[in-house]
Every structure is written in structure tokens, then in C-alpha cells.
């Protein structure tokens, strides 16, 4: 406990200290995003993520969005545990045959209004797995997709910038 307090006092707020180099681009984008979310969604944008067969790198970057450096949640973007609480469904992976039904059910469980974002090349058209016997070549054939965030995987900055550009429309 003493160690923790000591560290806390010595280090100060870690996010600020380390994010310094990124602030120039990232922070203004985040502030804009926050304003847009406040305007369009009231307070926050709630996202439910579904992995339909990703290689886990896309998940890792989504998680990184919430690490103390990017800390996406301070701009009003939350990742929620239930589709019932979600405005947006974030899909990764090429949609394996075993996940098609789960994806459909998750989408159906969300209340209206709702929209879908695909993240990573796999979710767009199967990416490196395109044409395989066991995938649906992306999420488009199962659910309507409003935005795609390209990359293999897209990094946290790309993710927030894509969200920002999308909400600007």
C-alpha cells in the first residue's frame, strides 16, 4: 500500500506524462470526438465488440484503446458487456461459419437505433482468409455495416480517427 501511494505521488498522473508526445494529434481529435458524441448520442457511445474469428491482434488494439495512454473512454466511448446496452456493434474477424449465428443473435439483441462497424481487413472481406471454405468473407453478408476501419490490425490512433471522421458526417 505504501509502495502504491509512494509510486502514485512520485509519478503523478501517468497518462499525462507519457502521452505528451502524442498529445499534438491525439488529444484534439479526442476532444472533437467527445463533442460529437455529446451532440449525437447525448453522453456516450456504447460499443459491444464481437470477435468472429480474428487472430486476436485486432482485439489487442481495441483493448489498447483503453490503456492509460489512449484512454478512449474519457472521450465518451465505452465498451459494454451486453448487446442490450450497446449503440454500436464492433465486428472483428472474417466471420467463421461457427460464429455467423452468434453474430446475428448479438445484432438482433441490440435495441434500435443501432449500427455496425467492422474493424480489420478480415471483417471487411475475409482479408488473409478470403475464399476459405469455412468463412463468410466478412460481416457484410450477415449484418448491415455502416463503417469499416481498415488495417491488419488498425492501431489505436487509426481507430479513434476513423470514429471521428465517421461521426463528422
Amino acid at each position, binding site marked *: 500500500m505504501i509502495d502504491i501511494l509512494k509510486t502514485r505521488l512520485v509519478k503523478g498522473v501517468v497518462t499525462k506524462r507519457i502521452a505528451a508526445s502524442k498529445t499534438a494529434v491525439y488529444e484534439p481529435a479526442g476532444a472533437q470526438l467527445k463533442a460529437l458524441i455529446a451532440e449525437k448520442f447525448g453522453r456516450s457511445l456504447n460499443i459491444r465488440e464481437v470477435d468472429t*474469428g480474428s487472430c*486476436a491482434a485486432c482485439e489487442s488494439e481495441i483493448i489498447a484503446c483503453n490503456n492509460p495512454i489512449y484512454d478512449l473512454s474519457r472521450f465518451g466511448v465505452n465498451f459494454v458487456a451486453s448487446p442490450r446496452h450497446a449503440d454500436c456493434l464492433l465486428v472483428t474477424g472474417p466471420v467463421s461459419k461457427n460464429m455467423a449465428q452468434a453474430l446475428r443473435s448479438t445484432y438482433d439483441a441490440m435495441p434500435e437505433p443501432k449500427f455496425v462497424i467492422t474493424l480489420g481487413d478480415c471483417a471487411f472481406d475475409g482479408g488473409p482468409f478470403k475464399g476459405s471454405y469455412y468463412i463468410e468473407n466478412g460481416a457484410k453478408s450477415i449484418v448491415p455495416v455502416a463503417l469499416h476501419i481498415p488495417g491488419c490490425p488498425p492501431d489505436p490512433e487509426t481507430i479513434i480517427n476513423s470514429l471521428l471522421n465517421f461521426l463528422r458526417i
Partner: protein
Amino acid sequence: MDLREMLVQLKQDHNVSALAVDEPHRDETYIWVDNRDFRATVAFVQKKLRAPLSMMFCQDRRAAGGGFAVLCSFLCAPLKKWLFVCASISEEAPRFDSLSSVVYSAGLFEREIREMFGIEPCGNSDARGLRLHEENWPAGFFPLRKDFTPPSAAAAPGNHYGFTRVEGEGVFEVPVGPVHAGVIGPGHFRFSSAGEPVINLEIRLGFTHRGAEKLFEGRHSDAVNLAECVAGDSAVGHALAFCHAMEKIYKAEVPLRAVYIRAICLELERMYNHAGDIGGIALDVGFTFPSAFCALIKEKIQALNRDLFGHRFLKGVVCCAGVAKDLDDKRIRLLKSLLEDISRDFAELKRILHASASFIDRVDTTGVLKRKTVEDLGVSGVAARASGLNTDLRKIFNGIYEIARFRVCAESAGDTHARLHVRIAEFEESVRLITEFIHNMPSGSVRNEAISPGAGVALGYAEGWRGPVLYWIAARNDGSIDRCKVVDPSFLNWQGLAYCVLGEIIPDFPVCNKSFDLSYSGSDL
């Protein structure tokens, strides 16, 4: 015992003579026996070597008139060799005697063979699907057969998977997944409990099956980009194992400088993942501060990955016969200074974790996996080393690791605490190794351009951060891939996880799970 002695004894004890013994590479020996002798030979070899079965798979050789073949391999550490026991299988009678009653870990491989090739492991009573879920895939379509055509109709309605049922008064089931509450891969976990303790945990996987092995077929060494996507958090391990196999087949030398750069990447990958896992273990018992701290360390390493090699997961670095990106002096200086910075942070993290008695108490004796279970299940990598098995491919096939005086990090308790310790020790060892590598790295080219594709078979391997990643590849005359078998350590280690939670309470599952941190996609392929 050397190989010749073993063959003599096999003849004496079991009256089995090898039909052929091949040694296509210094570290690979193939013993071919008659299909009828396959089971006895495998049992004999396993008993002699006391090594776990590391992979088992089939190959469709009908185009060359050879029916099918079944191969299984053992790591023989003292001889620094992989030993394969193989048998032909005729097209008319596609079957062989199941090994699962003599080698437990063969069971899962056999189910895989059955659904992918339609070859029957006679005596394996578990007829359930593994990756091609019976709800979604009609019977009678075997993707890894060469004459496979995808089914045009869906599976018959009403098919379902038979979970193991635990019966008795007060027994209840808690099904979880495939879609979980967090941002995490899909899998189905079914706990059977009575009161608090878990009586049985059944893990059903295959949700991320994408047909990766089939996609390798027909491609050349450029398929390394596909290998990197089999398990994206282990991209370097998979790329290395894939390229290793291709290089052995093409007889391509890898320049020494590239060997060093590859090893640096492999250790960076280990570091960012171990950092993430240590944080995950802390988070799953509600200790959030160190977990945030770990996220910072992980982020620092991944940002460093990008500054050094242009990709946060180090995809696109490893290529056949070398690496695609060299490290200049400026980058090496950056690497050195950040390593110091990162190890300072890590030392602080360690202090924080160890200063919390309640945290240590929480992970201590939680989720124990006994050494015997590890051996029976064929568990490998970090999870095996935490239970006292000190197998590490970096030690056995040492090369530059020996020059850097690599030490295997092992513990014996087999609990979450031990797995945490192995990760901490490996993280620190990786920092030290990279420092050594930078110091020992010669100058020169990083890629051998003169590769000549050709036919052959080879096993490629690398000790990824989870454990040994294995790629067995057979190539045709033009160098294209005819068969690629991938084994990520997760495949067998999931079983270890299912065992270690027995007797624990369900709320302990997340922390046990994180202490293994297995790959869904690497296991499902």
C-alpha cells in the same frame, strides 16, 4: 539410447520392423512402419523417449498413388531431434488404430484427423466434431482431402454437440460463451458445479476456425503473411516456424545478422505479451493499479516495435531466408535506451506486485496443474515450465541462445503464482537476451536472395511466447505447399486449463485462464 538400438529393441520386444527410416534433415528422423504396427510402435517410442506427443496429422498422398499417411512426432531432447513415426493408410480402408488409450494427448489430434480427412482412428470413442461444428457443417465433407469440394447445403437441422453431463443432487451447469462479456476471443465454457467447487469444465472451441491449413496449400514461401495471421499475438513465433520449415525444404541459409534480428523480434513479442498477461492476472483478481501499469509497459514495447520495424505486432519482419527489415545504428540506440527504461518500469511493477500480500495470497495455490497431468496432456511452454518441466526449444536447439547463455525459467508449484513467476522471469531474461544479441550481432546482409524452391518435407519450429509453435510442411517440385500442419501450443494447453480449475470456484476461472492466456485462433486454425 540411440536410434539403432531402439529399432533393434522394437524388433525384439514387439516383432516390428521398420519399413524405412528417412533422415531428410539433421534434426528429423522418420520411421515408417506398417499400419498394423503403428499403435505399438508409437507406444514403444513414447515409453522409451518419455517425451510427449508434439503433433499428429495426416497427409493426402493419393495424387502420387500413395493413399494417405499418418504421422506423429516426438521431441527427443537429448538427441536434439524430432522423431516421427509414420504409417501409410490405404484409400479403400481409411483407418488406423487409435493411440488415445496409450497416449492420451493423441485423442484431440485424432478427432481433428477424422473430421478433416474422413480417416477413422479405430477405438477413439469421442466421435464429436472439433472445429467443424455439427450444427453448421454437413457430414461427409472433409476439407483437407485433395478432392474436397465445399458443401452446397447447410447442415441438417437438429444436430448438436453432446456435452459431458455431470449428474447428481445439486449439480448445476454454468454455460458461458461463445460471445463473452469482454473484448476477447470466442469459446464455449461449460462448468458443472455442486455448491462452490467446479466438478467439471468442458471447453468447446473451433469458433474461430478459418481453414488456415487449407489456405496454405498451393502457396509458396510468401504465405508467411498468412502464418502471421494464424495467431496474431504470436505473429513472430508463427512466421519463424513457417519460414524455418520452408528454409529447410529450399535448403536456404539464413544470414547470421538476420538470425539475430529474428531472435530480437521473438523476444520483444514475448515481452509485450508477458507484460499484458501479468497485468491481466492482476486485473482478474481486482488489483487494477499494476494492471494499468502493465498496459503502459505493453504499450511502450508495442510502440517500440513500430519504431523499430514499422509494425506494432512485428508482422512483415520475418521472411523466407532472412528478415525484410534491418536495424540501423539509430534504431539500435533507441532499442537499447528503451530497454533500460522498460526494465526500470518492470522492476517497479515487480515490487508493487510482491508488496501486496493479498495479491500473492490470491494467486498462490490457485489453479494447480500437476507435473503428471502436464505430461499426460502434452501441455507445453510456459504452462509446462511452471509445473516443473523445463523444456524450452531455445535451450535444446540453442545456436545464438547458447552464446547469450540463455537460462530456462522454470518453477515447480504449477499454480497461478508459478505461471506468473515464469512470465516475470522470462520477461527479465528476454531483456537480458536482447542486450546480449545487440552486442553479439555481426554486420552483413539480412536476407539471402538466392533461394531455389524445390520439393521436400520439413518441420519448422520456434519457441513462441506461449510455447513451441510447430509447422510441418510438404512441398511439391515447384516449391509450392502441398500440406501444412500447424500446431500452436494452445491446442493441447486448453486441456491443461480445463484440468487446473477442478476443485476451484468459478470466480477463480478468469485468473487461471489469464495465467495460461491461450490462443483461440491458434488452436482453431
